[in-house]
């Protein structure tokens, strides 16, 4: 456990969202609890994009944990495919869903969608990297090798913005 008073370092799945957003024809289905959709505002508010990022979340809650979260993921993946018709589907889990061990990759493949399914392994609990003078690059270093994207894509404008403007 590490006491963090303030940090700009985001979780690795937000890095994957940046990649999905930087590409065309890709949709990312993210197994994640209610509230993780806050990450959309990094794109719609801080970068002022006029589109939501191409991400569908399962947004599970307590009542879903009592039933079948794997089923919820399959339904979200199927609906996302039908609605957005991507040419490739990225699938993965945020930190909380990683603990559920539902295997988004296996579940999505079982749907037999007619497009490639790319599971992303983004371990959220690994030991923090030693301090680095460039926080954005530190975050990107973790996401980059696993999704095999050219590094240039990861240096997305807006990466270094500190936070949403005060609403007043």
């Amino acid at each position: 456990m590490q006491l963090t008073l303030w940090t700009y370092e985001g979780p690795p799945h937000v890095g994957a969202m940046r990649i999905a957003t930087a590409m065309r024809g890709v949709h990312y289905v993210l197994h994640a609890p209610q509230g993780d959709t806050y990450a959309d505002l990094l794109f719609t508010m801080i970068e002022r994009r006029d589109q939501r990022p191409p991400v569908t979340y399962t947004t599970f809650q307590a009542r879903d944990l009592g039933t079948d979260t794997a089923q919820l993921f399959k339904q979200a993946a199927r609906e996302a495919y039908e609605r957005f018709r991507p040419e490739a589907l990225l699938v993965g889990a945020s930190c909380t869903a990683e603990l559920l061990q539902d295997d988004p990759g296996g579940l999505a493949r079982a749907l037999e969608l007619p497009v490639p399914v790319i599971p992303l392994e983004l371990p959220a609990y690994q030991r923090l990297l030693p301090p680095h003078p460039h926080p954005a690059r530190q975050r990107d270093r973790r996401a980059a090798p696993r999704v095999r994207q050219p590094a240039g894509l990861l240096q997305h404008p807006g990466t270094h913005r500190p936070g949403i403007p005060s609403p007043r």
Partner: protein
Amino acid sequence: MNVPAPLACAPDPGPPAARPAGRERGQRQVFCGLTSIIWLHRKIQDAFFLVIGSRTCAHLIQSAAGVMIFAEPRFATAIIEDRDLAGLADAQQELDRVVTQLLERRPDIRLLFLVGSCPSEVIKLDLARAAARLSQHHFPRVRILSYSGSGIETTFTEGEDACLAALAACLPDAAAHERSLLVVGALADVVEDQLRRLFDELGIGPVNFLPSRDAGHLPAAGAGTMFLAAQPYTAEVSRVLRDRGARQLAAPFPLGAEGTTLWLQAAANAFGIDPLHFERVTAAARARATGALQAQRELLEGKRIFFFPDSHLEIPLARMLARELHMIPTEVGTPLLHRQHLAAELALLPPHTAVTEGQHVEQQLERCRASRPDITVCGLGLANPLEAAGLTTKWSIELVFTPIQGYEQAADLAALFSRPLDRRTRLRC
């Protein structure tokens, strides 16, 4: 004087199950309860909020409250790592270490909240036990409490509800014959001061607020306590207070001139205040509010408004906008509909208003785009894409941060809706 006739008491809400509400399940585009730390840490000035969570939790708080970087913030995250997941005993020890480290670094902390998150709940890290254990070491210098702000358990403002419920459970006992009024739900200091002045003039007292600005000051509660909810998302703290014998006064929430009057009146009736005296005390402020609203009504009358579910303020806002500004709520989304807690509001909402509980964000976006409302209240993730589609939006979080309660703020509340419409009109010219 163009003032609606005062009602003798809050309207009879009727059977709370009477109004039908659509219910949706699907992706929910809402904040989790951790977000409420952003205003709670400013409101309770010597409290500290330690989230026990993941890097995502830290990132959420940082990106949503990034304006705080210039000062030592009064919130932090204890980030769970691999080895904490391996054994819960170790995680408890680690938590003790982190709390000790924090309290050494920040001797000014008087009240520490251990705030549960999605991952700490999934691994069943017992924060109530941790708070009790840590209190043994640090009480009375520091009071340590716990609550859950996880997205699994709470939506947005419900994080405040959970925080206040934890506080309410440890209020000192009041003797049964000690009559007092407790106002529940965080209000801006300026609103709190105005309301306190009105209660003083009415002769109602003693009046306490939960949360209070000062963590050291915990009001007593007991059978003589009557409480008024100032915010609609206070169902859980209300339950705790009722369990302690306190009596809840039924009223709509203090939004708009009408809402504020009915809210104050519920307290006045409970304290046996003479109706003529009530009228004398409130008349001037009420007249100012209704006069200012009159000007806003000319801009907003007949405008159609669509609410995405987010802050739990949606139903009281829709009531106020419909009744006092003659706007037309086409759909009022709410994350969760507490019929009993909102009974007085639901009774005042225009009868044909569509209320939706829960969310399927894609379907709701389709409905919103199809109905082309004049203004849409939504979260930060949806606002700019809807603006790009030609819709005018208002951020729901702005309605949480801005002082909007009470007579003096009624026109400010209306202006929050008229300004974006005015801006769009000017941009078109």
